[in-house]
């Protein structure tokens, strides 16, 4: 089982790959939209990337609740 930090670090790489955000900026308290400037279409790509990377399923109706990096990491921890 990956640690919270390991999940955050892998997620940071994904966010960097899709949206070009520096990995060090992808911290648990950051909002994808407000802090990291990730738009809605990039967010879809990131969440699909999470499904592939972490083996979780993130239903469309759940994705709107994942506002911060911490939300996404917690979801992945709970469902992987």
């Amino acid at each position: 089982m990956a640690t919270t930090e390991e999940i955050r670090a892998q997620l940071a790489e994904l966010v960097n790959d899709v949206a070009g955000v520096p990995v060090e900026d992808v911290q648990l308290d950051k909002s994808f939209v407000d802090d990291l400037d990730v738009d809605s279409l990039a967010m879809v790509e990131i969440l699909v990337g999470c499904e592939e990377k972490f083996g979780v399923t993130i239903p469309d109706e759940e994705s709107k609740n994942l506002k911060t990096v911490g939300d996404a990491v917690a979801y992945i921890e709970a469902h992987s």
Partner: protein
Amino acid sequence: MTEIVITGLGATTPLGGDLASTWANMLAGTSGVRAITEEWAEELPVKIAAYVAVDPSEIIDRVKARRLDRSTQLALIAAQQAWTDAGFEWEGEDQVDPHRLSVSLASGIGGLHSLLNNWDAHRDKGYRRVSPFTIPMLMANAPAANVGLAVHAKAGVHTPVSACASSNEAISLGLDLLRLGRADIAVVGGTEATIHPLPLAAFGQMQALSRRNDDPEGASRPWDRGRDGFVMGEGSAILVIETLEHAKARGAKIYGTIAGAGITADSHDMVQPDPTGEGQSGAMIKALQDSGMTPADIVHVNAHGTSTPQGDLTEAGSIRTALGDDTDHVVVTSTKSMTGHLLGGAGALETVASLMALRDRLVPPTINLVDPEPDLAIDIAANVARPLPAEGSLAAVNNSFGFGGHNVAIVVTNENATV
């Protein structure tokens, strides 16, 4: 009528990553065609193409490129060159009134790689793997829309689609917009990126593509008796055009004038040209009339000249029909002998080449013309560049014809030129 001048040029082509290198290689008679080394080509009958000389991945940021089809990436590269060449800062503060700035930029096919790659993802891994950017990447107006966003154009952004005549039609539309007073300045041109197994297979099944796989540089040979089809190319060429008044008011350098355009439709067959050449010659005649010129004014024709067995013969006849005895003093060339066929990017690249030929008074060659068709009644710049008259006014016609029977001719001149 309002005079429309050309004030900025840009290109990324199989001959170079910018216009200067493209033009130098064109004058030198360099072929941009090469063997396709990717594995997918092994089973295809056509294993040659003309890739852009500088891959867009070397220029466009990786994250940005993820959201842009290759056809749009090429258009943005050429548009940035043209916009900068016209004296503006790319993605800078508004330097012209956005409400007086238009874009007319074509693609013949659209975001083919984005469409097919996402279908591959869907079929192989399921719908969740389809990129949410697929639609804005594949739509045919994506190159125009992205250039419009970059230059902040608010006077309308357009994408005429007429297969291989598309970018000449885009130039014609831009000319009309400026003449009608709907804008003062426009970014016009075309782009295409379709070197992919599907179009190579599809055009191959039509017997439209050269299969001279063992001699890529010799494969595109317009009017040569050994020709056996066109060579797929890719790339983009873009022009900034504006009213003479607007150009003078801002002190812009001027390459020349877009004097007129002529458009006809064959209404004969979906893919074969009307063998009488009525539609093709009609487009040239209309373009001359629109320019207020006669055949005596024309010194150069940059032909559509794709290197197909029937198309080249029909066009040679059409040129003589349109220009009559004045054909005798016209130097004809097909730069597709070097660039391959850029489909929706072809007309724009060849309009730019026509203009450069007038500027340098030098027509680029039609390479690989070693065994010409016997009864061609046109004078072709075979294998080496050919000088134009050293002094005086010069005018050239650029032809583009497309599947569907579309014929578009553009007339450019060296009137008003300051460079």
